[in-house]
């Protein structure tokens, strides 16, 4: 069991013992690089990809086939097509999201970038090409909105999901730009927006206004997806095309705004969120300085607070969208990394929390991976 931690200043690996009681921290890798995402290939359980950039150098991908002992830079990182003479083209600022493709497509990976772009590698992350037509499509470009009008860290394409039953069935989400689905391996994509809300007084028919923060598919029921949005928590059960706002059942004082959402590996009724303060100027801290994870065990009809072991007050951090995950052990362990550089583990599905690393840089991503 290893936790892959991407931070604003590098990457760390935490190796756990069999009981997940002690953790050996190893790193930093790429000290000073912003590691937006660090992912292990579940098909060989040895290949690591790291999405990296710095404040001044351009973005790249690093690849390791020996669990980080050595790294090699991608020969061709994600990059947009060169724009025709006389027009202004986009440049990838950073790769934000990495998703290994289907088991039937060994060595294939997808990447989402800022500004919004979708890329695919078929050689284990060494070379990347624009995937599908959406990066240059006028309709999709309008839904992405202007780059300079995006979020302060740059508008992002994220939550790339491959249906475990069918490698041609894909989803992705954009902040901003909505949720989209392909059933033909990316030849075509269509918005999947019905039921999703936008901020008050704006038109939900305008896809540019939609800001899904994180979408997860349930491995135990791939027809069910959960979504943490700028405007609430949602669930959809395919083939329905309508998202249901299940966050309305969250306590009013806490609300249903957040970045991250994770799902149970074996129970599609169970999902966890980490709410943040979305009032007034959007502090995006733990509401009231009292951090807590909330769990639903019935698809969103009820939510329960899980805060045993977490600070009771004056803790003003939050958890970014890739910085929360669950392992696949019998007693599922939850993990999240904070903007203040702490890594927390929630034993027994979040019943008891303990801090397993602190004093790291701001944490951007946490993945739990099982080694061979």
């Amino acid at each position: 069991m290893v936790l892959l931690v991407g931070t604003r200043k590098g990457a760390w690996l935490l190796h756990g013992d069999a009981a997940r009681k002690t953790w050996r921290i190893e790193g930093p890798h790429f000290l000073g690089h912003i590691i937006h995402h660090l992912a292990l290939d579940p098909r060989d359980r040895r290949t690591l990809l790291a999405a990296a950039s710095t404040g001044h150098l351009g973005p790249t991908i690093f690849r390791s086939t020996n669990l980080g002992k050595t790294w090699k830079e991608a020969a061709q990182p994600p990059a947009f097509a060169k724009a025709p003479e006389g027009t202004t083209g986009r440049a990838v600022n950073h790769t934000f999201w990495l998703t290994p493709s289907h088991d039937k497509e060994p060595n294939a990976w997808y990447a989402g970038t800022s500004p919004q772009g979708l890329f695919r590698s078929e050689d284990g992350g060494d070379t990347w090409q624009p995937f599908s037509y959406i990066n240059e499509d006028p309709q999709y470009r309008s839904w992405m909105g202007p780059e300079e009008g995006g979020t302060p860290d740059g508008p992002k394409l994220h939550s790339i999901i491959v249906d475990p039953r069918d490698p041609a069935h894909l989803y992705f989400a954009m902040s901003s730009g909505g949720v989209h689905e392909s059933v033909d391996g990316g030849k075509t994509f269509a918005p999947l927006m019905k039921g999703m809300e936008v901020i008050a007084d704006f038109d939900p028919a305008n896809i540019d206004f939609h800001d899904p923060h994180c979408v997860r598919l349930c491995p135990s029921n791939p027809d069910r997806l959960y979504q943490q949005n700028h405007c609430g928590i949602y669930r959809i059960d395919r083939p329905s095309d309508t998202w249901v706002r299940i966050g309305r059942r969250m306590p009013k004082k806490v609300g249903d705004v957040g970045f991250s959402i994770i799902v149970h590996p074996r129970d599609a009724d169970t999902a966890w969120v980490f709410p943040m303060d979305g009032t007034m100027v959007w502090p995006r801290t733990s509401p009231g300085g009292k951090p807590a994870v909330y769990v639903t065990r019935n698809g969103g009809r009820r939510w329960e607070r899980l805060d045993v072991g977490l600070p009771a007050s004056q803790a003003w951090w939050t958890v970014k969208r890739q910085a929360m995950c669950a392992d696949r052990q019998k007693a599922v362990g939850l993990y999240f990394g904070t903007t203040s550089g702490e890594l927390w583990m929630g034993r027994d599905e979040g019943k008891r929390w303990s801090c397993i690393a602190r004093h790291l840089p701001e944490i951007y991503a946490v993945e739990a991976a099982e080694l061979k």
Partner: protein
Amino acid sequence: MKVLISSPLYDYTKVSEVEAHGATLSEVLTDLDRQFPGLRFRVIDEQDRMRPHMRFFVNGEQVFELRHALQSNDAVQLVQALSGG
């Protein structure tokens, strides 16, 4: 010609000063990328624009165009502009 490399690019060059050839800044960067694969994309984007926080100097004067003509005895410097924490 002599090219002075700033520390963020030492992962590629291992040293602070290298030799490269070309009649323009763009050609010099292409030659650097041939010698040190991946270096060019870290400083020039896919639209052939200088990345926002990279600065290029020739004989101590900042230049802003990749097509800037160079002589074989020019000294080129690649510098990054750091800010924040």
